[in-house]
């Protein structure tokens, strides 16, 4: 039975080194639109969050434009992330092994990945990043709409707006924290970035960090050739 986290586009190209397709061009474009939106949102949002960071509004051509553009970028992010969510949610469902992986997180941090269960397409940390992002983005867009005075001020009371902006800023801090985890993991675990730039990783990377995924891909490709290729020689 093919595992849930396998996609048809994920192909193995034997060679030295082995190359494994991880993300389609569509997924990558989708990811980078989301990434750019998130970074622009963080910069413009932080400008309005803390006086010491107000200078960041200069990146957007001043406070007025920062105030104007921030919610619109939020709308872009919401729909862009929705695309990512629909692409990735299945592979991010929580499994029994994820608990074990998390319990041995110290080994992961110590670069001793041999002591943790073999990982499918995503490890427990990646899944937590995915689900935190999903939940936080829903919180941010809904509280953000309440605080979007230009178009929505008449629909809520001032007390609701106060609560919304407080929730919005706490959720924003949380999502920037999650982003730091996401960003750091991508650079700490070398060989990861190419998954989102060129769409492929080396076999060694997959063996080291997502062995179960690699094994499943190998199994699928051998089966795939068996059934869709020529009839078994007999």
């Amino acid at each position, binding site marked *: 039975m093919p595992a849930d986290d396998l996609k048809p586009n994920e192909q*193995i190209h*034997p060679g*030295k*080194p*082995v190359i494994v397709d991880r993300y389609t061009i569509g997924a990558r474009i989708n990811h980078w639109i989301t990434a750019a939106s998130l970074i622009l949102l963080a910069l413009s949002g932080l*400008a*309005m*969050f*803390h*006086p010491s960071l*107000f200078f960041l*509004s200069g990146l957007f051509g001043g*406070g*007025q434009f*920062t*105030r*104007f553009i921030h919610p619109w970028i939020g709308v872009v992010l919401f729909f862009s992330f929705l695309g990512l969510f629909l692409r990735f949610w299945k592979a991010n469902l929580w499994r029994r092994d994820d608990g074990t992986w998390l319990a041995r997180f110290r080994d992961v*941090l*110590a*670069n001793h*990945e041999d002591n943790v269960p073999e990982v499918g397409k995503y490890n427990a940390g990646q899944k937590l990043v995915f689900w935190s992002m999903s939940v936080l983005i829903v919180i941010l867009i809904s509280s953000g709409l309440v*605080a979007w*005075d*230009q178009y929505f*001020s008449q629909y809520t009371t*001032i*007390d609701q*707006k*106060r*609560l919304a*902006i*407080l929730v919005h*800023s*706490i959720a*924003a*801090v949380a999502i*920037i*924290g999650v982003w*730091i*985890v996401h960003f*750091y993991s991508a*650079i*700490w*675990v*070398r*060989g990861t970035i190419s998954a989102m730039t060129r769409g492929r990783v*080396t*076999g*060694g*990377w*997959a*063996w*080291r960090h997502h062995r179960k995924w*690699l*094994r499943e891909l*190998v199994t699928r*490709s*051998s089966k795939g*050739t*068996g059934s869709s290729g020529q009839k078994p020689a007999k």
Partner: protein
Amino acid sequence: MFPPLPNPSTTETAPRFSEKDLIRRSASTVPAPEQQLTEVAKLIDVSKCIGCKACQTACIEWNDTHPEVGVFAGAFENPPDLTPDMFTLMRYSEWDNPETNELEWLIRKDGCMHCADPGCLKACPAPGAIVQYSNGIVDFVHENCIGCGYCIKGCPFNIPRISKVDHTAYKCTLCSDRVAVGQGPACAKACPTQAIVFGTKDEMKGWAAKRVEDLKSRGFANAGLYDPPGVGGTHVMYVLHHADQPELYSGLPKEPRISPLVEAWKGVTKYAGLTVLGVAAGVGLLHHLIMGPNRVTEADEERAEELTEGDSHARR
């Protein structure tokens, strides 16, 4: 009668206060001013108000705003609410006094209270968009305003309004430009019954005490001054015949204060938030320095090759 404000002199007068007299500036700090100006205040005696709206007219004229011609909404308020072009508004409420069985027409001139602890200024993220002078005037500086509407959330009295034209916030300035040259606010100047008087805060408190005494002698046992301590006192004060129930006057808050939600947002969230992010980034950096990168080894690549090789052998 309270001595009326003198007419302006015909010679040019230097402003009596300027940026040097700021005691607070939004999203930034100011050096302590060299001198402390005498605190000013506007006193609105609702018991003397006849609801003529001369104050509104004077306000429009002096501030050169151009409110839209409204429609009749079945109430005396016109416009129905404060707008970016209407900094002050007469609010009318009819109240059946259960004790006397009489109908009372309670009229209140609504507008910025010029709080000593201004919630708008606390909430404002734009440096210098809201300022407070040591004489108590809280003013909006439009070229610094970004139109975010945070002041609306900060204000305990629901006063600031964002203009749809230039996307900046507007409210009563206490006629800071007039006060700066020794004049009083336009509304006080125009008021035909001295329901609005202007002077130093101490003078106004003294005058209010006399008014309260007078009202009490006329049977308003609960008459009093509205100078709410929850916002540190205000530089616009009311004399109310029912000071024990300010809500009667079109919802004047009984114990106004900056909402705890705003305090949390502009207090602990602001500082803890940046700390959390700083720590997260620091931990990442530290981890990288101590543990180093997690690199794929030659052996890993070989194992992957074996795995796929084995597979391609099987396929052959």
